């Protein structure tokens, strides 16, 4: 009897923890081959590029949810702020460059714009945490926090979107391209330098974050807080240092994504909406708070999006991924890579 229950238990465990991930990864591989065969390598490369950006967005969501238990619905506005900052830094430099060309500055200007967006995002995150979430945490009773934090992020989202419309208007502000260079040929497909750089920025930032979380003292402390908040305090970790830092990092990553994709999305007040939904979609499918799952999930969604557009048409772009998400959640409610979030019920 004992054997039987433990066998069933372990089988179920194997099925619910590994099998969904294997199926999804295999499915993604097959899908990308199909996409490649039907639409050319360029389609696959493009979906990897956008996938990297969704991964960058989703990692921020996963981090904030895992460490602070904040369901961040203002993450799209961080994307939007990043896009605007990049635009306002890049555009003046671009204008002066037209009068007096300078190859070095032309190469560095987009990077400057994107880095400025990241820094601005980090500062915005710090500010929001210190000014809004910190007092809310002091006032929230046990069990209320997740809901309160959710409502707060929705409020922030409204204010940032409408505030931006008020100050800057609803105009689209974009750049035709960041780097004025010939597309590079990858596996026979021409890929624009902007896309390649966007991919490098996404993977570079994710890699840097991963190294930070795994190998540094402060990064370990962030993970410790997400795994056991009381235990972390007992080790001497100050939550009032870890929370703003985490929120700042997450916001910075969304801003980086917004800035890197400026050539694709342009900057306007509601630009963050679609990336927000996609990032949530990734996080829910991968497992709430699971940072590693969010990275893989971003690429999965990128491919899924491209495949939908190619085989079903653009109008289905939001429908099919949503159907897939619902199907995944019906089978594995904790997400394909499992949820690492602790202590939700205690708050």
């Amino acid at each position: 009897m004992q054997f039987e229950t433990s066998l069933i238990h372990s089988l179920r465990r194997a099925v619910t923890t590994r099998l969904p991930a294997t199926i999804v990864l295999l499915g993604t591989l097959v899908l990308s081959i199909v996409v490649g065969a039907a639409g050319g390598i360029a389609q696959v490369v493009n979906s990897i590029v956008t996938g990297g950006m969704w991964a960058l967005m989703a990692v921020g969501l996963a981090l904030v949810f895992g460490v602070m238990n904040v369901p961040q619905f203002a993450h799209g506005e961080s994307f939007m702020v990043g896009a605007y900052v990049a635009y306002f830094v890049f555009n003046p430099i671009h204008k002066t460059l037209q009068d007096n060309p300078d190859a070095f500055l032309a190469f560095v200007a987009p990077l400057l714009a994107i880095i400025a967006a990241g820094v601005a995002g980090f500062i915005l995150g710090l500010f929001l945490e210190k000014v809004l979430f910190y007092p809310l945490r002091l006032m929230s009773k046990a069990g209320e926090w997740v809901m309160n934090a959710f409502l707060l992020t929705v409020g922030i989202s409204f204010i940032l979107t409408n505030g931006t419309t008020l100050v800057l208007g609803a105009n689209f502000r974009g750049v035709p391209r960041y780097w004025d260079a010939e597309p590079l040929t990858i596996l026979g497909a021409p890929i624009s330098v902007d896309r390649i750089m966007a991919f490098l920025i996404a993977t570079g930032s994710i890699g840097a974050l991963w190294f930070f979380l795994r190998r540094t003292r402060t990064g370990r402390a962030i993970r410790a807080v997400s795994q056991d908040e009381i235990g972390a305090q007992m080790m001497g970790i100050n939550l009032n240092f870890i929370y703003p830092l985490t929120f700042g990092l997450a916001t910075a990553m969304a801003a980086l994504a917004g800035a890197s994709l400026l050539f694709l999305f342009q900057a306007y007040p509601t630009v963050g909406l679609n990336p927000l939904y996609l990032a949530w979609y990734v996080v829910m499918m991968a497992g709430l708070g699971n940072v590693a799952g969010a990275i893989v999930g971003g690429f999965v969604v990128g491919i899924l999006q491209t495949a939908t557009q190619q085989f079903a048409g653009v109008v289905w772009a939001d429908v099919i991924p949503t159907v897939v998400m619902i199907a995944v959640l019906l089978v594995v409610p904790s997400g394909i890579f499992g949820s690492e979030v602790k202590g939700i019920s205690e708050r």
Partner: protein
Amino acid sequence: MLELKNLDASYGFLQILWDVSLTVEDGEFIGLIGPNGAGKTTVMRTIAGLLTPMGGEVLFKSRRMNAVPAHRTTKMGISYISESLNLFVDMSVRENLLMGAYIVRDRDRQLETLEFVYQLFPRLKERERQLAGTMSGGERKMLAIARGMMSNPQLLLVDEPSLGLAPHLVADVFHSLQTLQEAGVTILLVEQRVNATLEITDRAYVLEQGRIVMEGPSSELMTNKHIKSAYLGI
């Protein structure tokens, strides 16, 4: 080293501790015994800074600690090994131990302490790379104690280390606590195993329904009539 003066503590409206006073001198091994729900863990949580007392005083090295948060008490030299262990389950044994040394910034000293706890618990060295969440109850207990020592504490608060452990492991754990005391660490031990606790501690306090009802040298308490009938069943 530690002094509680007329401590009152509560969770919301529910008062748990009434007028609790106790002292722990440098290098002493003190036991705090009592039945389930007497408030032993609440005493520990208050000292560790996880709970702010509603009345009375907590003094550590003559400093008032009432409003000092948990992460600061750790820096001041108090280490709390909780009943629920609060391990970082998705981190390896080594990572958990290094987290224990979070406040120790000197890398060499961290590794020195790591060697020391590995000597004390060779099992942990064997399991260095294993995730804490996949270890057995006894190993987790060892890991929690070892992690609590990684900050080089002056005062170690140990909450029910025997809970859920097989008897031979309990002996191991108690033995390691004695080794620690010999190494100069002051220990406050909360336990339900009255007999074993009285055997290894210098002095002990008895907490019942949130009040200290008895205190004295452990050897004397062992022969006390109330203790004998209520806890030892003789």
